[in-house]
């Protein structure tokens, strides 16, 4: 400050030391901004909590008048007792058919969400105390399927209770054994699927959306223009963005994992280390995408729209989180292969519900790693300390 350059030769800090100091300064700056900016906190912390509560609890709304098909292969007193239970229930809108084939047709046409199958030997088996009611549910909407399953269980339980009251001998748990199978979604507990799936949404949101937004904001407000004319390198500016938002995304991840374990008791059959590692990798992909978007689109509005449409919406709709990819049209199925979220959903579902199955984990991880490297390379190329 005092004295011109010749009189006070600027001490030349080692190249490396300067770099570390600059990146640290940018990270400190960004973290302060995150702490002070209500919208960052809202997106990074409040939003995950809201989503967890919403998806975990609020989506378990009552299902009323669920259309089901009741297959009664052979009319009997027992069967009509069960049928009456369904008809009287406010939860179902039951139509009776006589063959399984007819019921399956209805289910495929999506006219019914479930099939309750009373076999021809139902009445006889009730008397033997070993009746099996087969329940088939349309699992693309796992949540509804789960609710219907619970109601069917209830309705049949009531029927068996009435039978017991009428003096029919009860063996074991009851005269009726329920054998249920959910099509397309064998482990039909929606929370098991939804809560791990939320990790995808939250990490995409903080990684891609928030990062694209804050970077575009710097372009828009002209803060980058001033920063550019300092010894800082473009790669250091990127690093100063990656680290804090990576951290914020991992906080969201931690919230989801805790919620999954504590609130919803989702089993974690794989190892925590593998889970964290693949999540960190996905977070890198996500942040890389956000930075790439903002290196192309330099206005907040455009950057946030692109990030939303190209990352968040596909992550929600096409990743297999809400809708099973196998039930999508073939063209969409092929398209999902370029979505990083798809691989991450596969990884999450596998690690949470199945375990460390390396034949699934390794290929998906490899794809994500490739995507992360490509995105960072592209961003580094596109980010120059230039205004136009």
């Amino acid at each position, binding site marked *: *400050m*005092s*004295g*011109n*350059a*010749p009189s*006070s030769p*600027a*001490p030349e*800090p080692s190249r490396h*030391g*300067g770099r570390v*100091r*600059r990146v*640290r*300064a*940018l990270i*400190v*700056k960004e973290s*302060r*901004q995150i702490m*002070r*900016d209500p919208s960052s906190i809202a997106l990074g912390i409040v939003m995950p909590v809201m989503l967890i509560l919403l998806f975990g609890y609020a989506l378990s709304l009552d299902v009323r008048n669920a259309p089901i098909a009741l297959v009664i292969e052979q009319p009997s007193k027992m069967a009509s007792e069960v049928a009456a239970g369904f008809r009287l229930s406010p939860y179902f809108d039951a139509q009776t058919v006589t063959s399984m084939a007819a019921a399956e047709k209805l289910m495929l046409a999506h006219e019914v969400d479930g099939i309750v199958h009373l076999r021809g030997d139902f009445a006889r088996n009730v008397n033997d105390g070993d009746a099996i009611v087969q329940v088939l549910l349309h699992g693309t909407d796992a949540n509804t399927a789960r609710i219907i399953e619970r109601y069917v269980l209830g309705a049949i339980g009531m029927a068996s209770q009435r039978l017991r009251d009428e003096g029919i001998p009860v063996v074991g748990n009851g005269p009726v054994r329920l054998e249920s199978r959910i099509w397309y979604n064998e482990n039909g507990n929606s929370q098991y699927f939804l809560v791990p799936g939320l990790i995808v949404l939250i990490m995409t949101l903080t990684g891609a959306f928030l990062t694209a937004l804050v970077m575009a904001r*710097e372009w828009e*407000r*002209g*803060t*980058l*223009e*001033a*920063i*550019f*004319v*300092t*010894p*800082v*390198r473009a790669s250091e500016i990127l690093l100063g963005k990656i680290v804090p938002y990576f951290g914020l995304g991992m906080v969201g991840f931690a919230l989801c994992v805790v919620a999954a374990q504590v609130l919803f008791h989702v089993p974690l059959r794989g190892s925590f280390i593998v889970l964290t590692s693949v999540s960190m990798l996905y977070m890198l992909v996500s942040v890389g995408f956000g930075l790439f978007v903002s290196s192309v689109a330099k206005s907040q509005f455009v950057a946030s729209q692109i990030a939303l449409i190209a990352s968040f919406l596909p992550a929600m709709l096409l990743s297999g989180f809400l809708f099973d990819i196998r039930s999508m049209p073939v063209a969409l199925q092929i398209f999902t292969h370029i979505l990083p979220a798809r691989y991450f959903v596969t990884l999450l579902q596998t690690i949470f519900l199945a375990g460390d199955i390396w034949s699934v984990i390794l290929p998906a991880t490899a794809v994500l790693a490739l995507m992360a490297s490509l995105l960072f390379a592209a961003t580094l190329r596109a980010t120059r*300390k*230039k*205004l*136009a």
Partner: protein
Amino acid sequence: MTENPRPAIEGHGIGKLFKRSGGEIVTALDDVSLTVEHGGLAALVGPDGAGKTTLIRLMAGLLTADTGTLTVLGIDIAQDPQSVQDRIGYMPQKFGLYEDLSVQENLDLYADLHGVTVEERKRTYPQLMDMTALGPFAKRQAGRLSGGMKQKLGLACTLVRAPDLLLLDEPTVGVDPLSRRELWEIILHLVREQGLTVLISTSYLDEAERCARTVVMHDGKVLAKGPPDSITKIAAGRAFLASPPDGQPARQLQARLLDDPGVTDAVPQGGRVRLVKTSADADVPAAVELVAVEPRFEDGFMALLHKAADTGKSASMSLGQTAKRHNGETAVEVDNLVRKFGTFTAVDHVSFAVKTGEIFGLLGPNGAGKTTTFRMLCGLLPASDGTLRVAGVDLRKARASARQRVGYVAQKFSLYGQLSVIQNLEFFAGAYGLSGRRRKERIAWAMEQFELAELAKLPSGQLPGGYRQRLAMAAALLHEPEILFLDEPTSGADPLARREFWQRITSLAEEGVTAIVTTHFMEEAEYCDRVIILDAGQVLAQGTPAEIRAHAPESEDHEPTMEDAFIAVVEEARREHGRPGERSAA
């Protein structure tokens, strides 16, 4: 860098093209050559769109030139921008402070980026804080500083370590006269005491005059280079003062003179008109007595610009139908007007009256309450207390009927950017309830009077700055209002556009339209019949420009200017009330 034989900046044949969103190619710089030596202050002067910002960004390595060579501190900026960026300080026009970081945190960030050690900071921070008077605000968030303080902080951030060259891009735009003077004191101090090399771009001609060297730019080209004297000399023997007939405002004579083919430039000054003739022996047939005066930088600059640009067109205009003249009546009457926002009093018992056909100026630093007063006058904001009569209507009782009789030009461009010029006019005509033939007539009038016909189909968002201003004014005049409110209409406008604007206002006033104007340019108060100076919501001084000028302290080297008077009035009031110099921009 005294040991460096090469100049601080050396450019030859620099060219730069830009592509507009429509695909149109714009030449920002055309064969620009310039040299800036080490040490001292150099100015880049020119009207808007001259290419000043582009040139400075090239020097900072933020853009790459299409043609030509540019070396900064002896380094080819196109080859090695980083080495230059390591050594220079650059303050963009809109300095990108991190608004949610405090003053101290912003400084620390730049100190870290520049690799300033902790020991060095101990030495430089107190100096910077002292110089910028930001010390007491170190913990305040940058976003909550006033405009002038933000600029000072921006400057401090570029000075965390002594740069070999400091590039400042219009650092005083939108800054009130007090803050502007403080910024200049800092810059001059740096140059004088520390031998810093500074290149500053500006459209304020008095600022250019203070620099050791100037480069005058227009339309992407360099018109002239040299010390300010060499520019001033262009107007040698051509500068005169003319006195208006008794009882007539100087602006009427000035507007007439501007239209005269023998006159290059004319501005009101101290109750008289300062003019520059096209040549020393050009005739001025307006039958006025001329007194020869020493030319100043502005005279030479305007003479240069007129030679280069087609600015011969007159901006005199007519409202159309004969305006209702009721001279002498009161058009606007404000009595003890108060506006509070929570506990904050933005306007504090302000009283004034404006007569029909007057041009009335509201002057004041940033945050003085000018815009709030305006919004109340236009019926956009209810007053907390006091009376307010506009065009004879009590605004607190009948806002709608008053609105029909006023026109309002907001500070920010408030037209629909995606609509074309003609669509905007059609929309506003409809909004004012004009229909049928009258609507057609008024739109045709606007296109003609504001010379918008050529650009009628262009989306208004793509209009050049001066034309936007014209369109905004045209829209506000469609319904032939008796009273026109203009909030900072000349902010960010260059000298040419400002003269054109005032010529229009003068014509309108002659037709009986009352104009109330806020402005940052103190010399523009000379166009007004009467002026009030506001600060912290209170009226500090009121009167004709001559009466206001009388507040200025005696000065040996120049006649007291409006700006001197303004600064004296505001400073005295602040001393008396012990009010802090800066208020946070709430």
